[in-house]
């Protein structure tokens, strides 16, 4: 898995590090890490529904913040557990724009092993970094 949960950053909550060879891969990994906080087996999410959304921000790190926040929104507003296989990011004059194609299904306590609700993505120690092998991010989620 291109992410790992960190033990000692957030006593009361969940922290993770995600990575990818490029930005779309990093964003996909981070999305899986957020969803995996709520459901124990990502493979149990069937591709029943498809949806597309886009987010933008002038800063790259807050683009990731807004993107992950969308997953939390769809979880409550439409009860959807989502995976995001396709992400494209473009950079224009006013900053970054991201287009995402997601799939997923309504959460079902019988089918999905649900763990804990993600309340919010936080900015505590939130960081997106360029590294030798590509990109990395640190994220703490409030649960």
């Amino acid at each position, binding site marked *: 898995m291109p992410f790992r949960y960190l033990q000692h950053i957030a006593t*009361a909550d969940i922290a993770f590090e995600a990575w990818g060879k490029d930005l779309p891969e990093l964003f996909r990994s981070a999305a899986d890490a957020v969803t995996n906080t709520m459901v124990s087996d990502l493979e149990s999410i069937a591709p029943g529904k498809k949806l597309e959304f886009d987010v933008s921000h002038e800063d790259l790190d807050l683009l990731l913040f807004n993107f992950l926040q969308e997953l*939390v929104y769809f979880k409550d507003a439409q009860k959807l557990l989502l995976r995001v296989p396709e992400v494209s990011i473009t950079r224009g004059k006013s900053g970054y724009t991201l287009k995402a194609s997601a799939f997923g299904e309504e959460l079902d306590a019988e089918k999905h092993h*649900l763990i804990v609700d993600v309340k919010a993505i936080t*900015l505590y120690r939130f960081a997106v970094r360029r590294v030798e092998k590509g990109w990395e991010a640190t994220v703490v989620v409030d*649960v």
Partner: protein
Amino acid sequence: MAIPSAVRKISETIWELPVSYKEGMLVPARIYATEKLLREMDDGVFEQVTNVACLPGIVKYSYCMPDGHWGYGFPIGGMAAMDPGKGVISPGGIGFDINCGMRLVLTNLTYDEVRPRIRELVDALFYRVPAGVGSTGFVKLSHDEFCQVAEKGSRWCLRNGYAWPEDIEMTEEGGCFAGADASKISKKAMDRGYNQIGTLGSGNHYLEIQVARPENIHDPETARTFGITLPNQIVVMLHCGSRGFGHQVATDYLQLFLSVVERKYGIKVKDRELSCAPFNSPEGRDYFAAMKCAVNMAFANRQVIVHRIREVFSEFFNKSPEDLGMNMVYDVAHNTAKLEKHSVEGKRKELLIHRKGSTRAFGPGMEGIPACYSETGQPVIIGGSMETGSYLLAGMKTADQAFFTTAHGSGRTMSRHQAKKMIRGQKLQREMEERGIYVRTASWGGLAEEAGIAYKDIDSVAEATELAGLSRRIVRLLPVGNIKG
């Protein structure tokens, strides 16, 4: 954890970090704790309580309560009073779960009457009170009706048959923060919250059946005033907040404040989670009005859940909720910002009090608490872990030193992953049942994360608040049955 060497001991329960500790501190930071609790605090507490001390308009001290631990922006257990004219409002001083709080309901049942049927009772509550990830409630509302909930709180519940008239009086601020304005709420916040009224949520949220054993009553007279009159009396405690609605309000305004804090207002904050705006600014006023909507939704959420609990008990014991004596002791919020009048250097002043994982604890004779508690001080409810118990306390006159604020819970000491590595949910459930606590959960993994071992000792926290003169212990309540979200 290492305590910073600059920490000065003021008394057995007060520790201070001076303004020289960090550049930009406007006031000293004060941590309320016994030496033992102070030593157990994580480094985040010292970093964050001193970051808060740098916020414009802060009055007297930046405070942290004995259950303090690392949080977002403010530490959990944090409290800061701001001058409304010169100071700021920050979502980081309130928390993502706006008006997360505690509610305590009485019964006239005893342990002997409930114990033989505890499994069935907990099961019945578990099926009727939705809990867990993404759960939705039985109250179906349009967006317009939801706006009414957001602006009226528990008063909406009274009008719609989900509350007794006295429930309103027994809720902090009468279950409604005046000045809530639903036009300051985003569609996203609405979408996330309008179908979640009457749901517990997950994480550390719970509904618990508890017993007040005679040996755990610290002050029988005040306990009687609070409605604890029978030996081994059964009570019901609730811990939850404003669900996805409040989380989105906090997120929306965190994003807004991030874009204006430095660019428009020239305020440099030590942590992006402390993003803020002057209280007296368009952004500050909008957030205050939106936050109040989330506060009111949380009061309504707990009220609707209490309505459900009364229905279940009534069907189960074949008596009306009135005949079962299911009156409320009190409902206290522990994640809010509120304008209150307090004495500062001998003068009455209106202050914006941020309480983040800390509880209002008004003392005897103060305005704003029900008449029946005017001699005792307001009831304060501090929730412990599902294995160890909780406390009912009372406000004290001496809490003026901290703008009448006390602790809110026991505070975690172990990460969720560490707890899950050490403990298995199913095994924990069996072991707890052997000890007389029957638990139902929406998630086995979630249950393991909430094991008692992951939390601070609640007895030490409650005792520390009493030693410091913030709140005094009235009854220690032990769990008998628990529903964990």
